[in-house]
């Protein structure tokens, strides 16, 4: 029965998602988005999808975040919403 | 024989990769490689069509695994026709657009050709595949390459138009993917035929219903059916010439093909029209799409934008025809996939020539164009007649089947919309013709013809004119042979 773990992580995921789209600083969005991806990766690992989790860890939490930060670096941190 | 389905995809893919390498080593080789790849692909498509016509459906197992486990190409006459259409249009466009590629993307033409080939590969794969998920992946290749190509267009507006296209395109593809997921959770399979046999026993399942709706919404977004069309006009009109010429005729048409494929092969007519009874609503939607597209086109001041809205209207034709729920309407839709692709291609070829010569195609820039570019305008006129639906160009004959289908289904509003749309298109194009035919309005009307100097011809290069000529002549040829096409290609597949 991993559903309690699953549920807790899922809740975190949703929190991270909401935080990522509401925070008013794009750099913070980037980091929260990385956290979101990492939580997601955890969730998948719990569900037994190790390959998917591995990929998400390297891509979502890793490279995507780097791209994100690079893009923010080249544009602006400012956002109105 | 049995390698052609693979060769069809692999030849342009390999060509793309080799051009991707040669960009860095010897850029001049890129173009010949690309042409060679497309030639092989076209030849394969032709062979496949012939084989399908003589021997029936072709199955090709990628990696050698039998269908539900492996990925299979299942090519019937419908696929084969669309495949040949795609390869030919892509090949002709590659030839016709050589000069515009050099002009519009001067320092990166090699990479541009690579991405163009990948785009074609995506379209071919979407059309040939018999696997729902494979379709998604190839759809994404197509989308991704078209985002990139459109972003390369107009310096000011291109990237923004492309980014908006990304957002909407991703939603569309994701909806489709979700629909496939809903099907998968109920069936456990991804092969189209397999899924079709499994869901034929669960017609009352609401999961299948939602899957169907999701797939359809996804595909509609991608094909820009009326309320979901907002991305299309900007994306198409700010794209580079070489891209607009191939994206406009093929992208939406291939998506219509996907819709038809899902309707015929996966869900089946019985399910859609007997169990669901959504037909009337969608046909109304299509009716509105046709009229709205036409009216919005009327408001445009730029030729490319106008054509983009005409495409929106044409999509209404095809969706409506497919959803009429009878064979005649479906025949009309499939025939219109072919015809609309050819005529849109001819139009955009002509527009590309105008852009190459005149710079931009705002209406005020088209004055006296018949005198300056008679050949280009000749092709343009033929294509325009086809869009209006003047016989014996091909546009008339698909409209013929569509209207008949509408009569058969009792959808008189749809028939009326088709007719009204013809009239709107007539107005649209004759407005252009007027601008192009009449020189600047002069004051002394009575002596107007006294000071007609013979206009100086500034035609596009031959490499751009010959393709245009070929394609616009094929409008008439396809039109005259539409009876044959219907009898040998479309009807056998629908039965």
């Amino acid at each position, binding site marked *: 029965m991993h559903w309690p773990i699953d549920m807790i992580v899922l809740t975190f995921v949703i929190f991270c998602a909401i935080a990522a789209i509401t925070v008013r600083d794009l750099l913070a969005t980037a980091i929260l988005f990385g956290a979101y991806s990492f939580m997601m990766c955890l969730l998948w690992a719990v569900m037994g999808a190790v390959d998917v989790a591995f990929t998400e860890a390297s891509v979502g939490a890793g490279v995507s975040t780097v791209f994100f930060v690079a893009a923010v670096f080249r544009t602006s941190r400012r956002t109105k919403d | 024989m049995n390698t052609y389905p693979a060769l069809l995809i692999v030849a342009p893919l390999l060509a793309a990769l080799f051009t991707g390498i040669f960009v860095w080593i010897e850029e001049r080789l890129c173009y010949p490689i690309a042409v060679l790849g497309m030639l092989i692909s076209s030849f394969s498509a032709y062979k496949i069509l012939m084989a399908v016509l003589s021997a029936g459906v072709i199955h090709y197992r990628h990696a050698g695994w039998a269908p539900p486990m492996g990925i299979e190409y299942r090519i019937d006459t419908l696929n084969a026709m669309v495949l040949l259409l795609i390869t030919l249009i892509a090949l002709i466009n590659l030839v016709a657009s050589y000069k515009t590629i050099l002009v519009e993307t001067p320092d990166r033409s090699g990479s541009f050709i690579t991405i163009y080939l990948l785009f074609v590969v995506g379209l071919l794969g979407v059309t040939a595949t018999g696997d729902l998920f494979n379709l998604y992946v190839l759809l994404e290749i197509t989308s991704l390459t078209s985002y990139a190509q459109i972003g390369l267009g107009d310096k000011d507006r291109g990237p923004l138009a492309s980014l908006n296209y990304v957002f909407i395109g991703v939603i569309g593809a994701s909806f489709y993917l979700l629909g496939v997921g809903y099907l998968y959770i109920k069936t456990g399979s991804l092969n189209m035929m397999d899924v079709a046999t499994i869901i034929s026993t669960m017609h009352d399942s609401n999961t299948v219903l939602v899957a169907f709706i999701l797939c359809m919404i996804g595909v509609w977004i991608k094909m820009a059916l009326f309320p979901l069309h907002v991305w299309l006009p900007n994306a198409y009109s700010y794209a580079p010439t070489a891209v607009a010429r191939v994206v406009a005729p093929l992208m939406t048409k291939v998506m219509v093909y996907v819709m038809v494929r899902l309707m015929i092969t996966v869900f089946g007519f019985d399910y859609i029209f007997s169990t669901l009874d959504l037909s009337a609503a969608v046909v109304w939607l299509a009716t509105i799409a046709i009229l709205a597209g036409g009216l919005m086109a009327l408001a445009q001041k730029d030729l490319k934008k106008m054509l983009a809205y005409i495409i929106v209207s044409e999509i209404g034709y095809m969706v409506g025809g497919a959803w009429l729920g009878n064979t005649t309407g479906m025949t009309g839709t499939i025939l219109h996939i072919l015809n609309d692709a050819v005529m849109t291609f001819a139009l955009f070829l002509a527009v590309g020539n105008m852009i190459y010569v005149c710079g931009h195609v705002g209406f005020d820039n088209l004055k006296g164009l018949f005198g300056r570019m008679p050949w280009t305008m000749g092709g343009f006129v033929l294509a325009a007649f086809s869009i209006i639906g003047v016989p014996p160009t091909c546009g008339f004959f698909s409209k013929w089947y569509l209207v008949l289908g509408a009569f*058969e289904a009792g959808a008189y509003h749809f028939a009326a919309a088709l007719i009204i749309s013809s009239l709107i298109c007539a107005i649209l194009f004759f407005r252009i013709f007027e601008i192009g035919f009449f020189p600047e309005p002069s004051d002394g009307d009575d002596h107007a013809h006294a000071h007609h100097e013979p206009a100086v011809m500034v035609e596009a290069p031959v490499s751009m004119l010959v393709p245009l000529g070929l394609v616009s002549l094929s409008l008439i040829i396809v039109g005259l042979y539409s009876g044959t096409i219907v009898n040998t290609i479309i009807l056998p597949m629908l039965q």
Partner: protein
Amino acid sequence: MEQIISIKPLLAVLVSLCVIPILVSASKQPNVREGWTFCAGTIKFILVLSMLPAVLQGKQIVFSLFEIAPGAALAFRVDGIGMLFALVASFLYIITSMYSIGYMRGLDEHGQTRFVSFFALAISATIGAAFSSNLLTLYVFYEILSLATYPLVTHHQDAKSRVSGRRYLSFILGTSIGLVLPAMLYCYHVTGTLEFSTAGIFAGQLSKPAATVLLLMFVFGFAKAGIMPFHSWLPAAMVAPTPVSALLHAVAVVKVGVFSIVRVITGIFGVELLASFNLGIVIASIAAVTILVGSCIALSQDELKRRLAFSTISQLSYIVFGVALLTPKGLLGGIVHIGMHAFGKITLFFCAGAIYVATGKKYISQMDGLGKKMPITYTALFIGALGVIGLPPSGGFFSKWYLILGTLETGHQILMLVLLLSSFLNAFYFLPIVYKGFFGTPPDTQEGEPVKMEEASFCCVVPLVITAIISIVLFFWPDVFVDLIKVGLGI
């Protein structure tokens, strides 16, 4: 009915189409270009003529090209009525080509290559329409004709022709797409065929209201026939150079419209069906209104070509009127009027053009006394006018005679009155022109001054003489036309 399969109809259609590339390539050498035009016209006429004997023997020449849908192919069939129309059109094409050389060069018009090319295209479409074996083919050529004539109508490329071109297209294209196309598709939907047959294609599948609506859609939809209220494109199209007005707007275009209506009435609905629904009288009344109103408007026109245009509108309705009587005599009179009116009216147009070329005058009020300067032209004008009014010795008398007999057959005497009244009106608006031309005094000349001959060029005068003579000849020998119609209708 015996049928011969032959490629001749197709060739007859294609000849002038194939010559277009040559015309375009010879744009720098006008004489070569004109030579080819003649050549194509002559070959076309010979081809048409070569089919005449077979058709007169009651055979039909058929040729099928492409099957679009079952029962709707692109196919040709030459029967009597089509033959009559094709003969007239292809013969007059040669004459008009000659005339247009005189006219276009006389006025030094621009874009002559474009002009002759589209002219050739238009005549191809006309012959195609004449030889169509079903409604689809007819519609195809009808549309081609509409579009091919647009550059001819707007030939001057000025503001006036822009407006006229717009009106021309919106009427012709609007009605054909908006009315004929749905009606045709509905016919196909109901019956599954569009093939013309004397018994009609609806075998009791049509209720009276549906038949009425369809028939009206066809009659108004073929707006080239100029039935009111869809007539106003014709006066507008008179901005075109006169050869265009002459051939296209007195013979080809308008007659294709009328011809289409004739085909629909005789070939699609069938005379019996319409008679049983009593619909003939409806069409006849509409035509009668157009006849009278057209004539009245013609009276008030001062510009010669516009007067001719309104006269054409009214004369076209004679044909529709005759056919709508649904009696053998009426049909005969109506259809024979296609030929008779063609020769009369083209003569009149040629005269108008010749006057314009020679003197630059367009308005009737300026033409007083011109007959003395241009006696040949005015004599031809007189003969043409007789033909249109329907007085002997011209072919027009013949058709009017049959029309009146037709009205008597139906028993509606009031229709006969319409014809008589219209003839009087015709006389009123034509004869004064001739009278004033011969006996009026030119406003700017002194009394008793010797009058110089000021005829237009040779190329302009010869054609109108020929057509005038033929107009008279047709009074004495109308047999070919009558026989063709009898064969075509199976009377």
